[in-house]
């Protein structure tokens, strides 16, 4: 079992879990504490989500060992979809 826990993907999992916790804290706790929507917080939560998808692609789905075209296409998805989602989020204005 120790061999598996020492695997690099375990570190990635810990980062993903921590990022989930950070996002939850900002979305739930911080949001409640300040009592109003905050554009920067929301954008950060979304950005974190797409960073997580990138980590999953690279380290769980082994894209970092993949041929360049696959790296480019999967990376483009992260940037394009992430960019559009964050952009539309900020477009909403107040929130």
């Amino acid at each position, binding site marked *: 079992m120790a061999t*598996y826990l020492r*695997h690099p993907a375990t570190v990635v*999992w810990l980062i993903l879990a921590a990022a989930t916790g950070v996002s939850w804290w900002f979305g739930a706790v911080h949001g409640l504490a300040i009592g109003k929507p905050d554009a920067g*917080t929301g954008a950060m939560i979304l950005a974190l*989500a797409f960073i997580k998808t990138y980590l999953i692609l690279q*380290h769980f*789905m082994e894209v970092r*060992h993949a041929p360049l075209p696959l790296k480019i296409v999967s990376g483009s998805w992260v940037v394009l979809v992430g960019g*559009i989602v964050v952009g539309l989020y900020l477009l*909403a204005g107040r929130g």
Partner: protein
Amino acid sequence: MSGQPVRRDVTSATDNSTPVAGRAAATTGHIPGEAGVWVFVLGDMTAFGVFFAIFMLYRSRNLELYLSSQAQLNMGFGILNTLLLLASSWCVVMAVVAARSNRLVAAPRFFQAAFLCGLGFMGVKALEWSEKLHHGIGLTRNEFFTFYYMLTGIHFLHVIVGMVVLAFLWRRSCRPLGKPLDRVLLESGATYWHMVDLLWIVLFPLFYLLK
């Protein structure tokens, strides 16, 4: 793992590739599984990308409704589901590592663990939806909930398919990787399951966290 001979080549557990595949990866790159699976996976991710964008667009036009509706979602369930899928993906990574090293006890156990996490996810979703429906919050309640049920529902269908894939891999991993096809199936199935996790990673903040 007990019952297995001690192996000195445990470096295989720190490198996802076998020695041969490792050399290949360094020069040409290795596509995990069948290339066709990646065409499907990237296509599916693109479709969901479009869904995400449409949701965010409609959200920007009706922010108050979306914010007040979101407040009715159970964030604890959302967090739990995220952690369950992340854990299941880790298990699948380890299952693949184990299978590549022909660990015929460890690999099925990891697939089993991933399967159980998937069951947990489905259970939480069922609980969450039934609780909503019990309070009369259904598909046609408002625009937010239409999106919510549609997107998490489509995702749920993907999870069901993923569970079939995991069950298949769970069984197959009791046998060594004999033919190249075995390895292709292993990696293809794993790739699909990670996609299911990846999609939820975006769905979760979209519906549960954005203020």
